[in-house]
C-alpha cells in the first residue's frame, strides 16, 4: 500500500492495463468460442447465427438495463426496426450486406431515440409498461403497413448479394455465421470500450443514484437517451443480421414475446457486464434448442425449471456466479501482492 501511495500513476496505468488485458482476453475467448462453435456444430450454423442475432438484442438490453438502470420489455421494437429497415431496403434493391447492416443500425438508433424519449419520462413499473406499449404499437404498425412489411405473412424475398462480392449467404449458413460472428466481435469490443469510457461510468452512476449524478452537475436524461440510441443501433444490427441470414422478416421480430425472452436471457446471464448477456443468450437458446429437440411437445417445463433453478442457485445471474468465483480468486491474488 505504501508503494501505491507513492507512485499512484504507475498503479493507475497498470490498473488500466489490467482492464485492457481483461477485455482483450474476453473478446479473444468469445472469438475462440465462436470459432469452436463453427467447427463443432457445422450443421447448426443457422441456429448459431440466430443466437448471434438474439445475442446482439440481449446486449442492447444490457446497455439500457444493466448500465442505465432502465428495465425494458419492448426492446424488440428496436430489433424489429433494424430488421424491417434492412428487409425493405433489400427488397428495394440495396443488397450489399454491410450496407444493410448499416441501414439496420441507423433505423435501430432512430427507433431508440424515439423509444428513449418516451420511456425516460417515467420510472419503475410505469416505465416497463411504456416499453410494452411501444413495442405493441410498433407491432401493430408493422402489421398495418403490410404493403411495405408483408404484414403477418412476413416480408419475403430478400436476395442479399454475396459478402464482398464473393461469399454467398447459402444453405449451410457459413457466410452468415462468420459474418455474424465478426459483427458480434466488433460490436462487443466497441461496447466494452463504450462502457469503460467516462460515458459508460456515468451511466453506471445514473443506474445507482441519479440524484448523486445530478449533484455532480451532470444531466441524466441526455446521457440515458444517448445510451438508448447506442442500444438501438446494436439492436438494429441484430435485426438486420437476422433479416440477412433468414431472408425473411416476420412480425415476431417486433413482438413482446421476443422482448420478454431477451430480457429473461439477460437476467439469466446477469446484468451490467455484457458478458452475462452472451452467457445468458447462449445458455437459454442452447438449452431450449436441445430440450425442444428431445421433446418437441413438452420442453417448456424444462426451460421453466432452468429459470427457477438459476434464481435459487445464482440470484445474480450465471455470470454473477462466475464473477463471484473469479472475484474470490482475484482477491486472493491481491492479498498475495
Amino acid at each position: 500500500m505504501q508503494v501505491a501511495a507513492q507512485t499512484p500513476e504507475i498503479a493507475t496505468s497498470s490498473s488500466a492495463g489490467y482492464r485492457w488485458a481483461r477485455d482483450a482476453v474476453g473478446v479473444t475467448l468469445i472469438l475462440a468460442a465462436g470459432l469452436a462453435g463453427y467447427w463443432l456444430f457445422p450443421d447448426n450454423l443457422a441456429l448459431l447465427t440466430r443466437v448471434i442475432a438474439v445475442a446482439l438484442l440481449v446486449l442492447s438490453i444490457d446497455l439500457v438495463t444493466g448500465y442505465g438502470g432502465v428495465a425494458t420489455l419492448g426492446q424488440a421494437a428496436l430489433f424489429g426496426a433494424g430488421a424491417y429497415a434492412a428487409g425493405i431496403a433489400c427488397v428495394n434493391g440495396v443488397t450489399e450486406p454491410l450496407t444493410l447492416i448499416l441501414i439496420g443500425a441507423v433505423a435501430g438508433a432512430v427507433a431508440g431515440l424515439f423509444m428513449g424519449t418516451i420511456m425516460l419520462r417515467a420510472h419503475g413499473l410505469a416505465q416497463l409498461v411504456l416499453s410494452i406499449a411501444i413495442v405493441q404499437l410498433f407491432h401493430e404498425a408493422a402489421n398495418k403497413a403490410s404493403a411495405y412489411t408483408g404484414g403477418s405473412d412476413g416480408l419475403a424475398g430478400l436476395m442479399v448479394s454475396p459478402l464482398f462480392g464473393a461469399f454467398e449467404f447459402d444453405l449451410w449458413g457459413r457466410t452468415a455465421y462468420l459474418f455474424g460472428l465478426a459483427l458480434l466481435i466488433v460490436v462487443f469490443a466497441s461496447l466494452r470500450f463504450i462502457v469503460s469510457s467516462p460515458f459508460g461510468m456515468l451511466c453506471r452512476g445514473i443506474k445507482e443514484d441519479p440524484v448523486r449524478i445530478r449533484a455532480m452537475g451532470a444531466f441524466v436524461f441526455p446521457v440515458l437517451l444517448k445510451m438508448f440510441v447506442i442500444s438501438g443501433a446494436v439492436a438494429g444490427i441484430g435485426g438486420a443480421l437476422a433479416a440477412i441470414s433468414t431472408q425473411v422478416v416476420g412480425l415476431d421480430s417486433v413482438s413482446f414475446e421476443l422482448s420478454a425472452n431477451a430480457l429473461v436471457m439477460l437476467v439469466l446471464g446477469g446484468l451490467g457486464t455484457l458478458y452475462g448477456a452472451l452467457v445468458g443468450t447462449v445458455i437459454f437458446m442452447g438449452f431450449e434448442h436441445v430440450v425442444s429437440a428431445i421433446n418437441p411437445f413438452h420442453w417448456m417445463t424444462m426451460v421453466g425449471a432452468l429459470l427457477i433453478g438459476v434464481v435459487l442457485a445464482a440470484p445474480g445471474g450465471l455470470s454473477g456466479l462466475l464473477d463471484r468465483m473469479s472475484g474470490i480468486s482475484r482477491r486472493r491474488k491481491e492479498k498475495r501482492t
Partner: protein
Amino acid sequence: MSELFRVEGLTKSFGGLAVSRNISLAMQEGDRIALIGPNGAGKTTFVNLVTGQLQPSAGQVVLNGEDVTRLGAVQRVRRGLVRTFQVTRLFSDMTPEEHVTLTVLQREGRATRILSRFHGNSEVAGEVETILSTLGLLEVARRRVREIAYGQQRLLEIGIALALRPKVLLLDEPAAGVPSSETPRIEHALERLPKTLAVLMIEHDMDLVFRFARRVAVLAAGEIIFQGLPSEVAANEKVREAYLGNYAHARSVA
C-alpha cells in the same frame, strides 16, 4: 470581499405548512458559516431549496450576481454551487478513485465522452490523486466504496464536492453518523478546504461548529432567528428559547 452568494426571502410550503419562511442569508468568498438548529427546523429543506432539488414558493437564490432561482440543480452545480449529502450517496461498486475521476471529468465536460477511456486517463490522474491525498483517501483509492469505513465515505463525499471546484459549498452534516474516533479526520479535511471557498455547514456537533465557523446562523421552525459570531450564540435569548423552549415552558407550567 465581494458577495458571492445570497438568498432572499426564501419560502417553501408543503400544502399549508411552511417549512422555510423568508430566509435571507449572504456569503462572501472564504466565508465559513455554520447553520444550526433543532431537529425539524428545516435545515435540509433549506439546502434542497438552495441547490435546486426543491423549488421555492417564494424568494430567490443569487449566485455570483446571477439569479439562479429558476435554474435546475444541475445548472447550479455547474455554476459552482455544490452540496454534500447528509446520508452518503455514493456508488457502492465504484472506488473512491473512480468517483473523483468521474467528477473531475464531468466538471471538464468530458464525462459524456464515448471515445476515450475512463481508467488510466493520465490527464486527470494528478488532480484526482491530489484530492484523494488531501483527504487521506489514497490508501483506499482502489477499494470499492462499500468496503471502506463510513468515515472514509464521508470524506469521499467532500472529495467529490471539491472535485467540482465549487465557489459555494454546502456541507450537510459532514460528520453525521461517523464514530467519534474518526471525527478528527473530517475536521482535518474541513480545515484544509480552499481558503477562497465559501462554506455553509449544517452540523449538530457544537464543538465542531465552534472550531470551524466564523459565523453562525440559527434556523428554527423554518426561520433564521439569529446570525452572528459563534461567541454570541449561546447568549442569545431567541436561540435559548428555540433550543430550550420546551424545557423552559415545562418549568413555568410546573
